[in-house]
């Protein structure tokens, strides 16, 4: 036990063992993979949708297209069932559902994406500022945020749009602002957790400025949970914008958008038309697919993210 003994009888080297087996890398489960394929599918549609669409989104199909030998001379064009002319049938005005879905992907996903980005820009900036600044800045920002959070999203959206009208920039602006409140809370709580960690303290002792602490120490450590939340928030925003469109305050005709397509064709349900079901299905596939990917990422980080997001 004494040093003498150790010198005369050198113990063989036993290497230090690592603390834990290396963390497995993110692996997608089969629902995750399916989700990834679906999301990829819709992303491709955004880019090539209009060029592969058989008709323009606002085109009302000619009656002649629906004339069948020995049939009616002036056939109905609205709420037609799928056929060679319109693969997914037609809507209440006789427009091609498939083309409108393909065009609508760009509007719905595009607007939602830009709105989510805006929500993140506002929410993360203010959230981190509150977490780092603390004190009065934190209290002030948090209380204002709470006030906005207490108003139901859809109400707030309705009031603003009713007041200033519905254009796409206003739609994006108001959606981004409304959802920034939720992002703020998450960014602030994630930021606060990292703020009290030893490595941030180490940076403070070193004398680092705020900019370094935010960009180098905090942001890289909250990027992953924020990315997961981005997915979920994106889904909420798609649903929100679709709801607004459904109420007639979102994207205005004749532009196609999945939410307004559901609303316009609601009457079709009475005639057994699939026109309102197709856009519903499109919204469902995209949002569920994103959720399936998010579940995998969340499970990978030990389920902690999922808890925080509730």
């Amino acid at each position, binding site marked *: 036990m004494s040093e003498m003994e150790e010198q005369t009888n050198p113990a063989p080297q036993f290497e*230090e063992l690592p603390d834990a087996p290396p963390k497995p890398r993110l692996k997608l489960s089969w629902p995750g993979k399916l989700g990834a394929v679906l999301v990829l599918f819709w992303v491709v549609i955004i880019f090539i949708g209009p060029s592969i669409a058989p008709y323009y989104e606002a085109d009302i199909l000619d009656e002649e297209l629906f004339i069948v030998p020995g049939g009616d001379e002036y056939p109905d064009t609205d709420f037609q069932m799928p056929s060679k002319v319109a693969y997914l049938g037609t809507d209440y005005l006789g427009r091609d559902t498939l083309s409108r879905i393909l065009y609508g992907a760009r509007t719905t996903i595009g607007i939602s994406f830009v709105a989510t980005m805006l929500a993140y820009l506002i929410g993360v900036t203010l959230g981190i500022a509150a977490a780092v600044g603390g004190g009065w800045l934190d209290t002030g920002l948090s209380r204002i945020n709470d006030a906005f959070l207490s108003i139901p999203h859809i109400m707030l959206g309705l009031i603003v749009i009713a007041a200033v009208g519905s254009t796409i920039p206003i739609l994006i602006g108001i959606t981004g602002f409304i959802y920034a409140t939720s992002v703020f809370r998450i960014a602030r709580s994630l930021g606060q957790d990292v703020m009290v*960690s030893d490595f941030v303290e*180490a940076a403070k002792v*070193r*004398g*680092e400025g705020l900019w370094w602490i935010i960009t180098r120490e905090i942001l890289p450590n909250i990027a992953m949970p924020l990315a997961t939340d981005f997915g979920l928030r994106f889904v909420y925003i798609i649903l929100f914008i679709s709801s607004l469109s459904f109420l007639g305050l979102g994207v205005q005709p004749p532009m196609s958008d999945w939410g307004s397509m559901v609303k316009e064709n609601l009457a079709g349900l009475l005639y057994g038309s699939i026109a309102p079901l197709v856009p519903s299905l499109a919204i469902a596939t995209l949002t569920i697919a994103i959720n399936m990917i998010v579940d995998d990422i969340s499970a990978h980080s030990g389920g902690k993210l999922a808890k925080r997001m509730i």
Partner: protein
Amino acid sequence: MLALLEIDQLQIDARKDDGSLLPIVKGVSFNVNRGEVVALIGESGSGKTTIALSALGYTKPGLEFTGGEVRLEGQDVITMPSEEKRQLRGERVAYLAQSAAATFNPALTIGEQVTESAVLHGHFNQEEATQRAVSLYHALELPDPERLGKRYPHQVSGGQLQRLMAAMALCSKPDLLVLDEPTTALDVTTQIEVLKSFKSVIKQEGSSAIYVTHDLSVVAQIADHIIVLYAGEIQEHGNAGQVINQPSHDYTRRLMAAVRPLPAAGQGDETSGEHRRDTPALEVKNIIAGYGRKQADGTPAITVLRDVHMTIERGHTVGIIGESGCGKSTLARVMSGLLPASKGEVLLDGEALQPDLRKRSRNQLQKIQFVFQMADTALNPRQRIDQILGRPLEFYLGLKGQEKRRRIAELLQMVELPQEFAGRYPEELSGGQKQRVNLARALAASPEVLLCDEVISALDTIVGANIIELLKRLRKQTGVSFVFISHDLSTVASFADEIVVLYAGRVVEQGKTDHVLAPPYHPYTRLLISSVPELRVGWLEETMQTQEAQAGIDRVVKLTDIGCPFFDRCPIAIEDTCDREAPPIRNIGDGHTIACHRSAEEFVR
């Protein structure tokens, strides 16, 4: 006789990314007989917890059983259907986790949680279970056993909570207890108390136990058999006296060699005066500091440190020692400026520093570097090692490009890490390696004073011993002064020139290491010294007989405004004096001071 638990050629593997298997436990076999305590000892990564958990038929996620059997009374628990496993766990085999604070639900009373499993398994009805719990509180010598069950976890001390966890495990009269490092996170004085009651309750109940730990001295007190593990294989297996007194395997000997000798005078590694200059490197004067809002008289709402003086000479090491809650980390935070002191001065090279670090100059910041306790959390997980080490070089010394890379290579060499580690992330390193990086980052600034806050507390014995060797070498090479904070007196004794003993934010004794560790002692220093576990069987029983132990063990540090804070734990306290008046500081000579009402003659007994 059939053994209670038979582990037979147990193999457990981890599944890697590519689907291949990485063996964690490689064919381990041993038995646990009734009424026997078997200790599994080894360092992190040796598979000791993994093996212990297999007694519950459980593996951590990512691991799987790939061979062998674990039989409880002849029944294999690995292949058992999960419904039967549920019956087994908590009723026949109970598990005690390392951290009691994390195990108890703060929203439920202690009684509800202690009796929950026994009632759930239908072993007892609520009334019987409560009675059983009360008798266990008695057996575990917990205070106020009749009413303890009505209290909430935050209303009892850490050591008591640890014992309550034993009550929780024992409530349904399990055949086997699995204890996973139950005393590792505790202070020495608390550890003794917990060990003692664990030992007596295990004897009283006649239970069998698997005790997982990395601490040989603890094992010597409690185990009947010892199994030494390394990398998932049994290195040595024998009864406790035999393994401790005549270790036969190289690895066991290596483990024993890393156990630090008991603190005593003459171990202090006196540094030569070569780096010494007239002005001390760092000096703190009359420091008063604490937390909470400042009051009208300038003192904080909760005052932690009161009138702390200390001087750190150039190239010297000052050890700060005390139990949790004594203010030792607060003192380091005051020195670094993380927590501005309310009153008093911090002098660097004889020059007063601003209390708040944000007002200190970059040059001053550079000279005092802080090494955090947990390397796991002190290194940003998103930065590579070269980025972590490169930043202080860039920030303080303005090094860039080639020059910076050269210096990073030198630093890695200095802390004995291979060069290729520069490109790795912290999570790819082991605990000891991370702590080396943590040190290298502080050294990168070319500091004059290094504040080391419990830098080896979280490490295994051998790894910790290596870090201490490294620190000793660095001290010689660089002439840096160290402030070495620890609750482990043995470590400080082997490393520091001077020792400051803190209790409840006050300096109770300070002086050269040899003086502090030799009589006359302050009663608190004496308690600390006698609480360090010795590596021999039977030490625990002997220690419990001493006066210090009976008076002072198992009490929490309380901050007091008047009198001597150690009053209620002190075997030689004077009623009406010690609890009323602050103790005078007695100068014993050569800078050795003791704060006590008793005179130097009265200490020596």
